[in-house]
């Protein structure tokens, strides 16, 4: 079931109509060319050799026998290819900034010595055939000196823990300062003194691999000093800039092409080591090189959501008013800090006294990085589990408790609009919350127990710089040039729809050119739910620019064309811009075997104006299902004794399949706050933020047991019910 409520909104011509993707036929016929589908004349195949140890110094690498294998054209190792992978190593949320790359203490190269996790890259081979390249890897002799390793972030900070970097295991920030990330609002001690009751709990979340269907690959080809990369990218402009920087080139010397790509969910932002390795192999061998990662390599050698440990302390008055919130937390970043390690959620509450301390910690597990809403789902799970527990302990309805305590606009922090009350109340009504939840958790008689859970959120929807170009010819054919890649949400179609609406022409009159840095202007990249609102806004402005030219000069005649362009940097006039959402879930837990089945799932989202209801709906449904997987199944487990990963791959991570999927109901409440393209806000990450918290709360309501560790696997439920 999908519904869109748009009270008081003027209907538009193209926007708001469910529209088939403009490239749907290519996607269903096999014509869509993904990176590994390209073939260039004389193309070689590249493969990477990876560390079998969680922490080891490489004493020597002998490539002589591998080099003698017929068909081997190039071998590169940490000894002769010292390429810094800037977007892969630099600390903090600004890891992509050029100055940060210079300043960082802990630099990641495309090959590293010492190797710091199982799967860290050691060497690479290019050969005339994939199988020859694989055979060559087996002929490279590497002598390792094993080093002590540490897997758990809290253990990594203890005295005497193995040191992964000379400065210790607490990650430095982007300025090189080695301190926890602290946010201190109000006076948390005073808040606890003011409270009637104090609750404390420890929550834990797992490592979730992005697990996009297309494994990492990159095809590199040089013509003189110009490099062309065919690569699955979520941001061709950033990939080009980062690749140029890491290889010592100018931006114009790199062309990035990504016409179709098989998902990313945050792990194909910017450039990747695969791009740099392929480019280096190609330069050494003098031939185009297609570098391929296996599924296992992709699982271990790329990154996923950071595992966390979160200690909460909440002070509350007997009437349910939260007076103090405190969290001390640890994020396991692997041995390179690819992103912040953030844990969000506390900011969704109005409580004036909040203290948060997050320790991003190096470990000898695989690297952590962005996965769809990087800081949110695990954080909202922790804090909303905590608050759900507090509500029930106080004898309150969690929805009522939320409406009392959630953050609202204030005079000094105004929002562009605020619809969270309507979102929550609509969801509660549609889901029939009062009938489905157990007032006393775990009160069902017998082994099969039902219950309902709820979660809510607000999420950034700010604006930023992007570019677009639109051209019209005498036949009134419009061509839109945008540097987006369609990673799945339907960006090409969305951009075309926004252009058609802004130009006042049907979508069929607009051709969209995308996915090629030599043909398209800068675009912000398909990360942070930004494409629709940022590049979409640039499309509106480029269309306005073109319309002004048409008004003053008339439509072009003969061979003339008119070209409009824009690179706007819109602001929200100092106001906070957020999208809003609430999820309601009913589960059935079989306490005899520990299994959880989802009976009903209702989502309500306010993501501003919805450009294409079909693709927006499937962003919510798909993200929600990913979040259910995080709640119930997914985690990369390690063997404590050997540091070996135990569950890489779809089968062992137990990803959700067709058979596991409930019907996800989607309800959009549409508004136009006057910002963004026609009022559109973020949607792509919104769905995943809420699912782990909602599912965990539903299981607690059904069983009467608070599950404090994700994923909530059968063994954990059985243990709690025993």
């Amino acid at each position, binding site marked *: 079931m999908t519904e869109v409520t748009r009270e008081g909104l003027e209907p538009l011509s193209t926007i708001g109509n469910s529209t088939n993707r403009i490239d*749907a036929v290519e996607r*269903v016929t096999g014509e869509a060319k993904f990176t590994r589908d390209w073939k260039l004349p004389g193309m070689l195949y590249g493969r990477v050799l990876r560390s079998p140890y969680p922490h080891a110094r490489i004493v020597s690498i002998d490539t002589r026998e591998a080099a003698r294998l017929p068909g081997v054209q190039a071998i590169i190792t940490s000894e002769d290819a010292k390429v810094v992978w800037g977007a892969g190593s630099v600390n903090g949320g600004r890891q992509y900034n050029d100055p940060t790359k210079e300043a960082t203490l802990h630099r990641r190269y495309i090959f590293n010595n010492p190797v710091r996790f199982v799967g860290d890259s050691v060497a690479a081979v290019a050969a005339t055939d994939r199988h020859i390249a694989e055979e060559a890897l087996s002929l490279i002799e590497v002598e390792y000196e094993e080093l002590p390793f540490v897997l758990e972030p809290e253990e990594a900070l203890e005295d005497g823990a193995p040191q992964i970097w000379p400065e210790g295991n607490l990650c430095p920030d982007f300025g090189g300062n080695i301190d926890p990330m602290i946010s201190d609002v109000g006076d948390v001690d005073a808040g606890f003194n003011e409270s009637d009751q104090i609750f404390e709990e420890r929550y834990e979340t797992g490592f979730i691999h992005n697990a996009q269907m297309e*494994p990492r690959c990159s095809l590199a080809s040089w013509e003189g000093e110009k490099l062309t990369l065919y690569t699955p990218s979520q941001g061709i402009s950033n990939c080009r800039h980062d690749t140029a920087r890491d290889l010592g080139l100018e931006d114009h010397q790199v062309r990035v092409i990504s016409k179709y790509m*098989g998902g990313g969910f945050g792990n194909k932002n910017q450039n990747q080591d695969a791009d740099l390795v392929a480019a280096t192999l190609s330069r050494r061998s003098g031939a185009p090189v297609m570098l391929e990662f296996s*599924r296992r390599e992709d699982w271990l050698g790329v990154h996923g959501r950071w595992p966390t440990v979160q200690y909460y302390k909440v002070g509350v008055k007997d009437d349910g008013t939260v007076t103090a919130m405190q969290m001390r937390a640890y994020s396991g970043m692997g041995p390179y800090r690819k992103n912040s390690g953030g844990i969000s959620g506390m900011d969704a509450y109005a409580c004036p006294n909040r203290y948060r301390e997050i320790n991003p910690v190096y470990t000898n597990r695989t690297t952590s990085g962005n996965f769809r809403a990087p800081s949110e789902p695990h954080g909202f799970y922790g804090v909303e589990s905590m608050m759900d527990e507090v509500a029930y302990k106080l004898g309150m309805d969690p929805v009522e408790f939320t409406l009392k305590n959630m953050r609202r606009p204030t005079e000094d922090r105004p929002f562009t609009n605020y619809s969270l009350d309507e979102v929550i109340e609509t969801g509660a009504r549609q889901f029939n919350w009062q009938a489905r939840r157990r007032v006393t958790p775990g009160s069902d008689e017998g082994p099969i127990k039902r219950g309902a859970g709820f979660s809510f959120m607000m999420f950034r929807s700010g604006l930023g710089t992007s570019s677009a170009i639109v051209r019209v010819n005498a036949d009134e054919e419009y061509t839109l040039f945008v540097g987006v890649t369609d990673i799945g949400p*339907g960006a090409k179609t969305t951009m075309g729809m926004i252009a058609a609406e802004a130009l006042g022409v049907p979508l069929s009159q607009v051709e969209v050119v995308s996915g090629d840095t030599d043909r398209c202007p800068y675009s912000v990249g398909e990360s942070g739910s930004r494409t629709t609102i940022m590049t979409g806004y640039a499309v509106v402005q480029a269309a306005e620019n073109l319309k002004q030219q048409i008004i003053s000069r008339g439509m072009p005649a003969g061979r003339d064309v008119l070209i409009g362009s824009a690179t706007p940097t819109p602001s929200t006039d100092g106001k906070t811009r957020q999208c809003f959402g609430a999820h309601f879930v009913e589960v059935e837990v079989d306490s005899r075997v520990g299994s959880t089945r989802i009976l009903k799932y209702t989502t309500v989202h306010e993501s501003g104006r919805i450009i294409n209801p079909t693709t927006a709906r499937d962003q919510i449904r798909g993200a929600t299902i990913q979040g259910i997987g995080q709640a119930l199944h997914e985690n990369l487990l390690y063997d404590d004794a050997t540091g070996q990963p135990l569950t890489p791959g779809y089968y062992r991570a137990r990803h959700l399949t067709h058979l596991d999927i409930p019907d996800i109901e989607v309800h959009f409440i549409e508004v136009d706050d006057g910002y963004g393209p026609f009022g559109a806000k973020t949607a792509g990450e919104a769905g995943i933020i809420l699912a782990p918290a909602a599912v965990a709360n539903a299981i607690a309501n059904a069983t009467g047991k608070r599950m404090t560790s994700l994923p909530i696997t059968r063994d954990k439920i059985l243990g709690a019910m025993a």
Partner: protein
Amino acid sequence: MRDKRKQGRNSGAIPEQDSDVKYFNPESQSRRDFLEGTGATVVAGAAATVLGIPAASAQQTGSIAARTAITLVVNGARHSVEVEDRWTLAELLRDRLDLTGTKIGCNRSECGACTVLMNDQPVYSCSQLAVWADGASIQTVEGLARNGQLSPVQEAFVENNGPQCGFCTPGQLMTATALLNSNPSPNSVEVREAMVGNLCRCSNYNAIVEAVVAAGEGENQGGVV
């Protein structure tokens, strides 16, 4: 398996496809010379001289893998090809026959992106050796549309937003095609059961099931149980 191979061989008048390849003549040329002459990559052949060479006679030295000549039908066209014994069917389709619509997501029978129909049955082409396809009839995503007309399930994927990123889509379409061939009007439960071996990490499962149900005939069309 053997019976199915026979069916494939006896399936009647199938056009011989003319491939732009160099031919290997075992009488006058060593495998190594041949491979070096071709950059050790292209090893497809339609010449009658390569047919019928037992795998055991192929040399296996260094990187030169054993080879076997096979004949198979792909999307209605017959191919006589010499394959390395270590090639998977997916490699044969993608790398040698340029049918890149079939995707490799895991290369180990976990995800289903590489699903093709072998003698009308869905198989993971990453986990079938190419030599096992000798005598078989293979259908890939490129063989679904006829004369530019999308098949009903392709059409339904377009109308119901079946693909998100599109990487799992060819495999989903092939399993759905096999299901619809045996059950022309499946309900959503039957679709989910039949397609459990095709993962979608975009998790577009709801839309895929809606599309397959819509592609069916009869009372379930357009509705989801």
